[in-house]
């Protein structure tokens, strides 16, 4: 990992530190770790006060009644699970995250290969153009998508009409709206997969492909026996990370459908917003958010495991 060959810094030639007397060394070490702790203090403070504490506080909030002065245990969780509208939220969140991530990963994989095929010719320009969806703040591009899907002014429908097709109510029916929401997420997220996969592709040693060609491997064989195994870890990490982010997505659904039609497109985040902030039922809102926790924790565990494994391999 320590690749210092490119560092050009005018500093004294490296020599190992001369050993001093034991006690003063120890003192120095203690002072050093004290200073290290001080430098980390803002970070620790931030994480403890605004991440760890709110997590526990959310659990506490979710166990209160609506007026927030009686403890009701897990009643809120049981109540939410029994409601058909919340069951729909669970279904939609899973459908949204899984479908969108699979499509993003596939599209990103294809795009990365196309970029790899052109061998760096004008790579910056192509990459820059493909990255535009990912660079525009999501809430603003979603607004543009909304305008493209507009029931009476839709530019897509105008184009479809020109080609002799029927108009599509993009956000009008539940399944259309679900599809539209996923499409916007794929449009936004595919470039991220493209960059990660492209970087991984570039790091696969060219000799492997050469050796395979000599052995007479077909393109499909090269893909399944070289490219995918070599990229396995990055594919896994990217997919898991994207599952977390997509699962917890808020902007697209909030702006495009606000959960409608008939509450068919609500995700955990948008539903928690409606329940907790708009209707002011803080405990129920916290409950809805917390339903994400076990799923996110499981995904985070796997991400962490894979990242650690990768770090160890590289060390």
């Amino acid at each position, binding site marked *: 990992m*320590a690749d*210092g060959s490119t560092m050009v*810094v005018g500093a*004294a*030639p*490296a*020599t*190992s530190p001369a050993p001093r007397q034991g006690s003063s060394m120890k003192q120095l070490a203690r002072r050093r*770790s004290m*200073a*290290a702790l001080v*430098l*980390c203090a803002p970070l*620790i403070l931030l*994480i403890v006060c*605004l*991440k760890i504490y*709110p*997590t526990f506080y959310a659990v506490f909030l979710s166990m209160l009644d609506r007026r927030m002065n009686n403890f009701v245990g897990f009643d809120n969780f049981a109540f939410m699970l029994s409601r058909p509208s919340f069951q729909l939220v669970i279904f939609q969140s899973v459908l949204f995250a899984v479908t969108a991530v699979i499509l993003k990963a596939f599209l990103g994989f294809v*795009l990365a290969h196309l970029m790899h*095929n*052109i*061998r760096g010719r004008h790579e910056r320009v*192509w*990459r*820059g153009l493909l*990255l535009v*969806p990912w660079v525009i*703040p*999501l809430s603003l*591009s979603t*607004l*543009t*998508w909304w*305008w*493209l899907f507009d029931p009476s*002014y839709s*530019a897509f429908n105008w184009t479809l009409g020109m080609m002799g097709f029927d108009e599509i109510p993009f956000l009008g029916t539940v399944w259309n709206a679900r599809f539209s929401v996923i499409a916007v997420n794929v*449009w936004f997220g595919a470039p991220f997969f493209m960059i*990660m996969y492209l*970087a991984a592709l570039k*790091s696969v040693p060219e000799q*492997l492909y050469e*050796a395979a060609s*000599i*052995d*007479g491997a077909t393109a499909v064989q090269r893909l399944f026996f070289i490219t995918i195994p070599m990229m396995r870890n*990055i594919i896994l990490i990217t997919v898991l990370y994207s599952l977390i982010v997509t699962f917890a*997505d*808020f*902007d697209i659904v*909030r702006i495009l459908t606000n959960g409608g039609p008939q509450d068919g497109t609500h995700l955990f985040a948008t539903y928690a*917003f409606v329940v*907790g902030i708009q209707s002011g039922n*803080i405990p129920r809102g*916290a409950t809805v*958010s917390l339903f*994400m926790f076990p799923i*996110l924790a499981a995904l985070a565990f796997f991400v962490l495991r894979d*990242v650690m494994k990768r770090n160890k391999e590289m060390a």
Partner: protein
Amino acid sequence: MSASATAGNLPRPKSKVGSMEQQRRMALWGSYIALTIFVIIFLVPPFYMIVTSLKTSAEISAQAGNPWIVKNPTFDNYWELMTNAAFQRYFINSVWVTAVTVTLSMTIAILAAFSLSRMGFKGSQVLSTGVFLTYLVPPSLLFIPLFQILGWLGLINSTWALVLLFPTLAVPFCTWIMIGYFSSIPKELDEAALIDGASYPQILVQIFIPVAMPGIIAATIFAFTVAWGAFLYPLAYLYSADQATLTVGIVRELIKGDVFAWGMIMAACAMAAAPPIIIYTFLMDYYIAGLTAGATKG
């Protein structure tokens, strides 16, 4: 790689070399065509954003002819927004929240990353892992308890709430990037400086920060992106128009009832999307290097 395994199945006569070359050229052109199609599809929304922003309300509502082209391009929408006090307010709010977030996040991240990658203390390994885990906590998980906490602090409907909360989204990843860059600096460098009598602050400012500049740029862009594009927190915590940032100001305040001034909304979107696009145009390589450091190493 053993050559004997599959060589027998697929004979490849030497005379076919020319056709392989041809195949390769075909693949190249195929890639160009496919990429062009993808680029066109990807750029439809931004293109339509700009097209609409150049139209008058009359042209938009007339619904006559091709919506993808502008008949009488006009910059009126942009001009009107630039002189609109409310829009100026959103812009200023976004700029100051972003500036403070970036400064704060980078300060916290650089100090912590220096300490975690070089100095170390009891439990610094646990902290590194913890930082990575907090990066995986999405904003939508904790926004309701944070609403209560901001209430106690009296920060509801104040942009200070964002200044307090955005670093929680930016710092973990910034720290993670900086740890990566700092640990790639050879230890001999700071050991030599230590022997020469340099103090830790001197080592940080005079060696680490200059050497890790690409990482600092990458992390800064990340913090900028988080603060500039955030939507959930400003929507949840800022309810009055004068405190709104650009994203929320455009989505919530410019769309009033059923009277959609789409030309102006799209012009506002284009202006709000301009700063990130400009930054990425010039600094994209640094950001991508920082982002994919894990993927390319090894």
